[in-house]
């Protein structure tokens, strides 16, 4: 794991620009040009942060690190997240690399941001290794002075022998990894569809990995037994897991993800 935020900050802390979580465990991001301290306003820090977040956004502008800052609640999370075309190219390349020899093999990379510019980027493509159902991210930053950790991107491939499913959302294991790893987001791509959990200040600091994963999988199984297809069931379960753990949940494609939960 890598350090995020102000100099001397310890490792394994979620990125927190101080907009919504004063006093909460997490690093203060001292490179944020939109930091409330820099703005003369009568608005509360939370209101300032959200207003600035919205104001800084135009339709096609990629989201910056500010957009990935830990919101106070799921409802305070950005309504939309846009990854840059360069980042999206990496996502698509990773998806296209997820079926070597026709067999599923998860791929992924580490999501970072440049402290100076707030630009979101990708490092450590391929991570430390993967299997058809797991990915080991490499969260060691290439230049910790310059960059900071946001989270992890990975793919959810299902080859022909597994039914060739696409549109398969985040697992309970994904949620637990992000929460316990103190990361801000986790993103998955399955076909052209993309999914993201974003932690909030209301999210527990840690969870029982096995319990979260098992509950999510049970819900998928129950939904399938009632007739839902696998992908649909996975999305419903992911949305419900997000509610349970106070995460914001996003779905989208081509690098544009809209908040699905809360609506």
């Amino acid at each position: 794991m890598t350090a995020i935020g102000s100099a001397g900050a310890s490792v394994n802390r979620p990125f927190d620009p101080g907009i919504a979580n004063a006093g909460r465990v997490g690093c203060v991001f001292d490179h944020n040009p939109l930091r409330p301290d820099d703005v003369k306003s009568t608005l509360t820090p939370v209101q300032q942060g959200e207003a600035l977040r919205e104001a800084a956004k135009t339709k096609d502008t990629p989201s910056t690190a500010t957009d990935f800052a830990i919101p106070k609640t799921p409802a305070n999370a950005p309504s939309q997240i846009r990854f840059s075309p360069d980042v999206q190219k990496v996502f698509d390349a990773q998806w296209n690399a997820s079926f070597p020899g026709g067999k599923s093999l998860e791929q992924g990379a580490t999501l970072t941001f440049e402290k100076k510019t707030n630009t979101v980027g990708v490092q450590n493509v391929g991570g430390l290794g993967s299997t058809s159902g797991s990915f080991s991210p490499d969260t060691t930053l290439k230049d910790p002075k310059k960059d900071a950790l946001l989270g992890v991107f990975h793919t959810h491939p299902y080859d022909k022998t597994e039914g060739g499913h696409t549109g398969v959302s985040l697992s309970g294991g994904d949620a637990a990894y992000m929460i316990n790893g103190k990361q801000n987001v986790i993103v998955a791509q399955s076909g052209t569809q993309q999914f993201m959990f974003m932690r909030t200040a209301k999210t527990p600091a840690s969870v029982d990995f096995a319990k979260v994963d098992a509950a999510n999988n049970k819900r998928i199984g129950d939904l399938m037994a009632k007739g839902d297809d696998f992908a649909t069931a996975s999305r419903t379960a992911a949305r419900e897991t997000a509610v349970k753990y106070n995460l914001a949940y996003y779905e989208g494609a081509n690098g544009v993800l809209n908040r699905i939960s809360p609506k």
Partner: protein
Amino acid sequence: MAFLTAFHQNKLAILGVAPVILSSCAANSSGVPLPVVAAKGSTMDLKMVRQHVDAASVANDQRRFADSIAQSRAAIKAMGDTYRSANQIDDTGMKLTLAEAEAAKGNMETAAAMLLRVAKVRAELVQLKEPAAR
């Protein structure tokens, strides 16, 4: 099955698995079946897992999908959560859920292939965690 030790037969019975001759340990150079000797410790547990996985693989190749499923389930059950690492994104549970849903629908070939894949992946992850168990 006389070559199996009582201990091992008991282990298989606990897992609800019919013992089978395994391809990887079925015979020595003389072609005589070798006993599977179970012992305490994770290394031996992993051996048992490998035996189930091998048996599942053989059964799958022979299109005995019900047998393959039973062997893969036994391997997965034997491993439990031991394959997990905190620094790893684990989606194998979703694949397992899908495999079981396919089995429930009677799609045995798909279920067998997926369960075998999950069992192999988790065994591989156990090995990565415990190199000494190789």
